[in-house]
């Protein structure tokens, strides 16, 4: 009963706050990684270099699907904005279902930009089907494909360190976010601009995708405060011997 209540409440709040955000967009706090990402998207078109968006190897049938969907939301935005570039963005995935959605999302971005003819199916790639084979297949892209910025957004474990090293060797910028704790600590030490925890899910809001993305952040904040209050109340009750 509690999960259903949380789900319905989250859905209701998302709807209401999205309507409110359409009228009052509000401001988001500065996150260096997203500032750099927005700049990288613009510069990639001017510099004649491409972006590489790596969506990790999270499947859609387990708990890692959330990060994969967040990566796809970002990809949709970037695809639309960089589709007119001479060097269009390349996206890689380490899971076949995610690979299919990567291609579909890229195509949708090109369609939205009105340049669907420019879409080539090899822009969305499945580079490996296990974590290390995926990384091994992706490591050559920063080096060989004229990449200016690597964006790692999805499920990555510690193997993200190898991608970060490949990015460093190719002298390209790296922005990284994952929901995996080991992956986060690796990206924290490896990436120029790491994103920690739920910042992974804020990418859409920072790239002005839709008011619903900003509303999602507000709903997350509301729930976070509810959880904090619940924890404090539980601690106080335990301290006073209520249970």
């Amino acid at each position, binding site marked *: 009963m509690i999960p259903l209540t949380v789900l319905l409440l989250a859905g209701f709040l998302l709807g209401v706050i999205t309507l409110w955000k359409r009228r009052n967009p509000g401001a988001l706090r500065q996150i260096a990684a997203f500032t750099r990402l927005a700049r990288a998207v613009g510069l990639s078109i001017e510099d004649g270099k491409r972006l590489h968006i790596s969506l990790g190897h999270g499947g859609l049938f387990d708990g890692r699907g959330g990060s994969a*969907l967040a990566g796809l939301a970002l990809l949709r935005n970037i695809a639309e904005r960089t589709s007119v570039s001479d060097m269009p963005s390349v996206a890689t995935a380490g899971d076949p279902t995610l690979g299919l959605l990567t291609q*579909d999302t890229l195509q949708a971005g090109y369609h939205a930009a009105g340049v669907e003819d420019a879409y080539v199916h090899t822009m969305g790639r499945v*580079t490996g089907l296990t974590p*290390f084979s995926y990384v091994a297949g992706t490591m050559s892209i920063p080096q060989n494909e004229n990449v200016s910025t690597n964006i790692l957004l999805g499920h990555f474990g510690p193997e993200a*360190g190898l991608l*970060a090293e490949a990015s460093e060797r190719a002298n390209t910028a790296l922005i990284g976010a994952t929901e995996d704790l080991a992956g986060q600590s*690796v990206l924290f030490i*490896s990436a120029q601009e790491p994103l920690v925890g739920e910042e992974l899910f804020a990418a859409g809001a920072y790239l002005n995708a839709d008011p619903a993305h900003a509303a999602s952040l507000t709903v997350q904040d509301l729930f976070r405060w509810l959880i904090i209050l619940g924890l404090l109340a539980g601690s106080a009750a335990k301290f006073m011997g209520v249970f």
Partner: protein
Amino acid sequence: MRVVTAVIAIAFGVLVLLGYFLPQALFPNAASLQAVLLDWAVILAGAAALIGVFNLLTVHTDKIRRREKDGIYSAILVIGLIAALLSGIFLKPQHTLMQSVLLEGIIIPVEASLMGLLAITLLYAAVRLLRRRADVMGVAFIITAALIFLGSITLPFGDLPLFGTLVRPWISQVWALGGARGILIGVGLGALLTGLRVLFGIDRPYGGK
């Protein structure tokens, strides 16, 4: 067409979700319908794997055809892929040759060597961290990692006093565990809202034309 795609995706998403929440006593068909839909999804995922392999093959044959830099690796990949595929079809994956040559002779050692390479890479990245980001968080990260190492390391003269029994458990079980739980709660909330956006049709990873 996009509307139809969205309607189908949302409808099936809601049906699968309801399978988790509706009481089976009142809605006996909800769970079985959910199971059927998930079975379809698994079959589609299997087909997607084939498409993924075909995509991999297309990308690398393109590289060979255009004589791109490091095309030799693409050629090795294509040859290896075809050889593994044919061996799997004719010998079956359980065959001794498949297990001993492909799995134990190539795949496992290569992945293990990448794991070894990763250990060195991470050590090097940790050393570079202070040069790249000499802020409070960077210093705290390095000190914490060093303390955990000192508490875990086995030295010739025995364990360091207090590090293994007090410092390491205190850092890993109190600070690190508390922080990890906080991060996981945030990630869980983020995933929940991302899923809801897809369910509401706001984000459409099933874009289509």
